[in-house]
């Protein structure tokens, strides 16, 4: 089997890496997936054979070098294999978000000009069929799960296993051509195209080369000392650059095993069973787990509660320091050991973090309390800072230098620069090739010297050299008084309370700040049950006076802490309301990665914002919602607006304490 290698013998493409792994560590596990209640596993040798068969089948189907092939579905080995098989044929995989609605899907399919679409199951096939009339370029749909598709018209619809079978049969005929195509894949060949989630405007197709992907993966693997013994859990959207780097690029570069959950809903159970050593999760996942631990503790017996709180307090005191390798007294170490036996160990086991060596979080800033909770338990949780355009990695925490309020230092090979407006720029081997069919956007983002604007405002922390990100450049603003307005910072503080799922702060150009809050149905529902508060709907619970009181106390606590910081004292929330519906990506209020879309929310709920600034005690509103099946409806509500206590800025307080 021929594959292009560098003079030093290093494979230069993902398919070449696969062939190397099959040859050098063929018997080691490459992929696992839980199916029918049992973990099935495939070695590198088996994986290579599966991938080659799919690739051969795609050749028979007429896939040409340079073609785009869309992939839609949850993380399953067969879909990962398909991605590599596509690359093997010289074509480019384009993974799509599986929860994208038909319209979003249509845009990406149209824009990428995909000839083939590989869809996981009936649900995804239905979506593709729905948009097919608008997207004429689609020639064939391939699917993995047969279920429910038997009766469909199979003129342009084929089962993936049939493709692989046909491929296997055509081995003699196509192998020479396949090897030839693989051999020409070099560092500058297109590796993958990933669409940005569209936080700002329409999604853009980020083209990454083999060099981008492999160099970045290698740098990360060396930085963390990854070995073939790692286990990762592949559960984040396949369309997200991070999943491509962790579950494909690094897995292939290092040769570790990728584990796929049984279904999206079993993720937590599967996490516990696999016990990954190398793990990535959004702050939301960590936060959700912490919330569920806290809720369980509320219901636990007195003894258990006491044990938990006593040892967690101790862990918060010394756990992080032990992890950072600082000196800690023998007595404290002993007590920490005891705590590990009684509390941390069992807790880590239930969370699925018993074996974890490196845990990453990124995407949104993580609440310092959440971050410290996991570090205290001895989980080496670090922040990552990056974006698709950089092949994910821009900055990160080196071991022993983890600070919850920074995103660490520049990743190996990455250069960082901050311009006079405070915007962060980077240049690295991972810097993307281009935005597909969008040279203007490419030029606007990447200058001639290769510097890329991140759109984030930040600065280097004095004395530490770590980068600290405050907010999006365009979101940082000023109040009418000229004081700084940094919404994300305040929202993150609010979101640490288990009862608050989402917060949106307003105040740019205004006299004072106001906020929308979203309750966390699980946490608040639980709290309501314990306090004998009955409710029939989300809306009723969200508007309950007792809930509003609780929210008010949270807001006032945040205000008090903001008053401590002279820079941000102006961001205190004077009036707020609790929204009658959960902010939802289906309604366009959040991105698919669950980031708040501030402008859309501001225009959609203009009446509510006006009411907040008018001083009215309550406001009636009518909101459009979309159901999961795509239909739309309206909900009406009368919301109570609350006034929160605002504190004078007390810069001296911290020094006095």
């Amino acid at each position, binding site marked *: 089997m021929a594959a292009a290698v560098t003079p030093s013998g290093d494979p230069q493409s993902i398919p070449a890496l696969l062939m190397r792994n099959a040859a050098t560590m063929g018997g080691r596990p490459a992929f696992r997936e839980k*199916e029918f*209640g049992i973990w099935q596993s495939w070695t590198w040798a088996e994986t290579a054979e599966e991938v080659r068969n799919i690739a051969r089948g795609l050749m028979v189907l007429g896939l040409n070098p340079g073609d785009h092939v869309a992939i839609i579905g949850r993380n399953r080995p067969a879909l990962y294999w398909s991605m590599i098989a596509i690359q093997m044929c010289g074509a480019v995989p384009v993974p799509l978000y599986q929860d994208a609605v038909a319209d979003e899907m249509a845009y990406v399919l149209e824009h990428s000009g995909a000839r083939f679409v590989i869809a996981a199951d009936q649900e995804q096939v239905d979506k593709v069929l729905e948009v097919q009339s608008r997207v004429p370029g689609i020639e064939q749909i391939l699917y993995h799960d047969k*279920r*429910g598709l038997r*009766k469909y018209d199979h003129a342009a619809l084929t089962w993936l296993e049939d493709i692989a079978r046909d491929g296997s049969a055509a081995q003699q005929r196509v192998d020479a051509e396949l090897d030839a195509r693989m051999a020409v894949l070099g560092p500058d060949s297109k590796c993958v195209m990933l669409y940005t989630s569209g936080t700002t405007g329409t999604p853009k197709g980020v083209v990454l080369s083999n060099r981008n992907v492999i160099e970045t993966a290698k740098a990360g693997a060396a930085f963390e000392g990854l070995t073939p013994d790692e286990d990762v859990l592949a559960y984040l959207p396949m369309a997200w650059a991070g999943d491509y780097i962790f579950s494909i690029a690094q897995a292939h570069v290092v040769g570790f095993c990728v584990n796929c959950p*049984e279904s999206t*809903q*079993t993720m937590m159970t599967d996490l516990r069973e696999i016990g990954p050593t190398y793990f990535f999760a959004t702050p939301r996942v960590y936060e959700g787990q912490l919330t569920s631990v806290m809720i369980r503790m509320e219901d636990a017996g007195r003894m258990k509660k006491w044990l938990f709180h006593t040892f967690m307090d101790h862990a918060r005191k010394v756990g992080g320091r032990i992890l950072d390798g600082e000196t800690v007294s023998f007595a404290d170490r002993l007590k920490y050991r005891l705590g590990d036996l009684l509390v941390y160990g069992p807790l880590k086991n239930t969370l699925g973090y018993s074996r974890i060596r490196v845990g990453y979080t990124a995407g949104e800033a993580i609440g310092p309390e959440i971050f410290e909770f996991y570090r205290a338990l001895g989980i080496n949780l670090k922040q990552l800072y990056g974006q698709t355009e950089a092949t994910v990695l821009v900055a990160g925490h080196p071991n022993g230098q983890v600070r919850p309020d920074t995103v660490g230092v520049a990743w190996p090979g990455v250069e960082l620069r901050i311009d006079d407006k405070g915007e962060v720029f980077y240049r690295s081997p991972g810097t993307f090739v281009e935005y597909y069919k969008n040279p203007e956007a490419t030029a606007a983002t990447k200058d001639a010297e290769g510097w890329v604007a991140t759109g984030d405002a930040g600065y280097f922390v004095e004395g530490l050299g770590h980068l600290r990100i405050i907010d999006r450049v365009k979101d940082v603003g000023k109040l009418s008084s000229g004081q700084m307005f940094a919404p994300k910072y305040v929202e993150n503080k609010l979101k640490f309370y288990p009862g608050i799922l989402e917060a949106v702060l307003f105040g740019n150009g205004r006299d004072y700040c106001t906020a929308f809050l979203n309750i966390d149905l699980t946490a608040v529902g639980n709290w309501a049950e314990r306090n004998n508060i009955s409710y029939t709907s989300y809306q009723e619970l969200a508007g309950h006076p007792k809930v509003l009181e609780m929210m008010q106390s949270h807001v006032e606590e945040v205000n008090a802490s903001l008053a401590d910081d002279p820079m941000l004292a102006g961001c205190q929330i004077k009036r707020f309301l609790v929204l009658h519906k959960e902010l939802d990506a289906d309604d366009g209020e959040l991105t698919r990665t669950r980031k708040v879309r501030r402008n859309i929310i501001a225009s959609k709920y203009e009446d509510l914002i006006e009411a907040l600034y008018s001083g009215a005690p309550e406001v009636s509103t009518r909101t459009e919602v979309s159901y*999961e*099946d795509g239909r739309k409806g309206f909900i009406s509500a009368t919301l109570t607006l609350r006034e929160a206590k605002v504190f004078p800025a007390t810069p001296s307080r911290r020094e006095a304490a």
Partner: protein
Amino acid sequence: MAQAYSTEGWITADGRKIGPVLMEMKNITLRFGGVKAITDISFDIREGEIRAIIGPNGAGKSSMLNVISGFYVPQEGEVWFRGAKRPPMKPYEVARQGIARTFQNIALFEGMSVLDNIMTGRLTMMETNLAQQALWWGKAAREEEEHRAAVERIIDFLEIQHIRKTPVGRLPYGLKKRVELARALAAEPKLLLLDEPMAGMNVEEKEDMCRFILDVNDEFGTTIALIEHDMGVVMDLSDRVVVMDYGKKIGDGPPDDIRSNKAVIDAYLGVSHE
């Protein structure tokens, strides 16, 4: 679309095969004391079809289902199953003949896990005796594994992997309905009876349930008889529909015929039921 009816069955528009008669009800009359719940009703259920029994509340649909599943014994009439007249039977004997059912108000084993619940669906198919089980002889162990594998396929099919180990009592309503369907499926029934499978569900759950019913029929070729008072759902789902009102049959035929049937329209819209 007009269908060519024959005793041997026919092929539906979407390519499914409807076979010969599986179960036939002949002139069934059921009384509770002086009250007639069912009056002289006859109809048949064919292999591979989805057969709906619809009617307004109190029309006698549930009574009919209970007659089929052996919970009620009719005073008059005959029940024919797989070409033979069925003597009066206890519900458990009917179940062992290959007729599985679900209940309108869900009858699950609340204290047991989802997995255990579904496993009970296979109780009648287990063959090893107590002594073999006690010693966990090869056959007993193998049998347990086979049944477990079959149950896992159903769990996968109905997408309830995430609640495999959860006690049923803790599940929300919609999932309980799905678990009950899973338990009935586990028995690999020749005839699956669904008692208002969509009752009390929201639109989304109803759509899911519809998909599951169609998929069960499609993938396993299971004959399904379901009762429902919501006409809309049934019309998209079923091959043939029996309409009942006040214990009498007022219509029987493919959904399109039923939709235009005068008596049916009256029963649902025109004539009040007080």
